[in-house]
């Protein structure tokens, strides 16, 4: 199951990265005579209110979401590794500072915090800047959860027999942290990455749904979901849920990849 999930994710990623060749039209290309069209041979998922091909925007939007959410997760896990490792190893006042910052970050309502920070930025921000800002916020604010797990793992390893053996051999602290402990954090960090990446995908979707994510005309799965704001139209226009279906499939694959991996481990 895990391999299948990773396979599906890989296939989706390849399709999204080849958007330029696979997508039938550019994501900005308008068909003014076919505004709000139903699915047809030319537009498999119809067109939106501005006459843009939905399938093309779904593919291009997926590229932004699927590439940048894992990148943001990578940033968050890297920060978490740095914070957890230094706090665990140095201990003392630095550990107190890091754990207090963690507690503060975790006790804040995460989505509202993102909303506040995003709302402080100009709304008419350039699309590229909006992409960078959205995912940078996710990455920089999402370190606390993974950091707590990593700190616990660091503490466990520091009390292990192999660290005792390394210390008894006279190895200096920084080498113990980097050579002995860090490689053993790889499984924990990987698990945190697999948990965080889909969480960031959903967070971006939430921000996009509220109009605070990636700015138009750049597409993302989050801002494509805004078409669902008018729920009464969904039964008569079921193709507008395509971004939601894609999001659910990708997040499910992420969850299957990590959960069955844990069972197998």
């Amino acid at each position, binding site marked *: 199951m895990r391999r299948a999930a990773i396979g599906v994710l890989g296939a989706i990623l390849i399709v999204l990265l080849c958007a330029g060749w696979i997508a039938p039209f550019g994501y900005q290309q308008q068909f003014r005579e076919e505004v709000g069209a139903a699915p047809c041979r030319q537009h498999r998922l119809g067109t939106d209110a501005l006459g843009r091909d939905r399938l093309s925007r779904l593919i291009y939007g997926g590229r932004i979401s699927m590439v940048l959410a894992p990148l943001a997760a990578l940033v968050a896990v890297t920060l978490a590794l740095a914070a957890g490792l230094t706090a665990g190893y140095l201990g003392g006042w630095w550990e107190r500072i890091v754990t207090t910052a963690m507690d503060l970050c975790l006790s804040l309502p995460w989505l509202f915090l993102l909303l506040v920070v995003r709302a402080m930025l100009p709304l008419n921000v350039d699309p590229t800047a909006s992409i960078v800002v959205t995912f940078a916020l996710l990455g920089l604010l999402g370190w606390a959860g993974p950091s707590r797990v990593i700190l616990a793992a660091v503490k466990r390893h520091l009390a292990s027999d192999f660290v005792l053996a390394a*210390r008894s051999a*006279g190895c200096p602290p920084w*080498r113990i942290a980097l050579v002995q402990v860090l490689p053993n954090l790889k499984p924990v960090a990987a698990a945190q990455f697999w948990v965080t990446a889909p969480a960031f995908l959903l967070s971006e979707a939430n921000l996009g749904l509220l109009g605070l994510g990636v700015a138009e005309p750049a597409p993302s799965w989050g801002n494509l979901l805004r078409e669902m704001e008018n729920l009464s139209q969904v039964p008569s226009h079921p193709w507008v849920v395509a971004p939601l279906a894609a999001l659910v499939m990708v997040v499910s694959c992420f969850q299957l990849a990590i959960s069955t991996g844990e069972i197998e481990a």
Partner: protein
Amino acid sequence: MSFFAEALTSRQEAAVARREGVGAPGEAVAAPREPGPVGQEAAVARREGVGAPGEAVAVQHEAGASPKESAGTLRDPAASRQEAIVSPSGGAVLSVHLSVDYRNKPGVLRDVEFDIRPGEAFGLVGASGSGKSTIALAILRLLEMRGGAAHGSILFEGRELLACREKEMRQLRGRKIALVPQSPASALNPALRLETHLREAWLAHSPRPWKEARSPVRDLLIRLELPADEGFFRRYPHQISVGQAQRVLIAMAVLHRPALLIADEPTSALDTVAQREILGLLRGLNREFAMAALYISHDLASVAALCQRVGVLRGGRLAECGPVETVMGADLSVGLISPGLSGLIHATEAR
């Protein structure tokens, strides 16, 4: 040949060497209390035809020591403190006078006192939980990793370890005092290749790059009967046997030729054949590198095979201490252990 028979042979050889050789100059400076490293004496005497370091100690001990001392009983703490003033370490490489408390268990060790001469193998026996490994960690000043605190005095080559700063201790660990841990399976880092383990142990105390050290390390691995090919270097701990893992740990420990090797139950995780091999190896290293050894075990047979003197931990105190033959009171040739010691161990285990 059993452990006891091997030990006896070793001691008989030493006795022959003592009868035939003469003491080397300067040996008399060692404190005349206990016999020196018998196995080593025999080896050196055989090689050079003269008495080995520690021989004059043994002769003086036999000639002049009181029956109480020769019986290996505990020294009077006041007398030993007085002796420490005259001679900080009394010729010993290590002098320990130690009490240890854990956070939730105070008084784990109380006034445990012993010393180890250069080149001597000293055995420490006792039941599980009697504090044997605690002593090993206390000597290395690593007890805080297990939540313990040591009080008293640990003199190593005349230097008070309990007063040393952490940086000074790092210079001593691995270079002057090395540890062979109890469980090879958990003491080797599962995420690192064997070469990385050896490299880290090497770089901890040597400015020379690892590339230059690979050749002598290969020789050492061959000496320890390990494969020293590139494939072995690239293996992970789970890809080798427990016996091989223990040998790798021994290689890491003797890499810098320490003055004191602490072996904390190095054979407890091994089968009988591997136990025999590791004991032979430790005995060989003790002779070859003339390094003192603190051999911690609850296996009396291995202690009898390896050590010249032994201390018995009971109830947080060193209940007995002296030459193996005296403390164990055993007929080594047939492998019997004195009822007194056996009862002592069992009584402690039953507590």
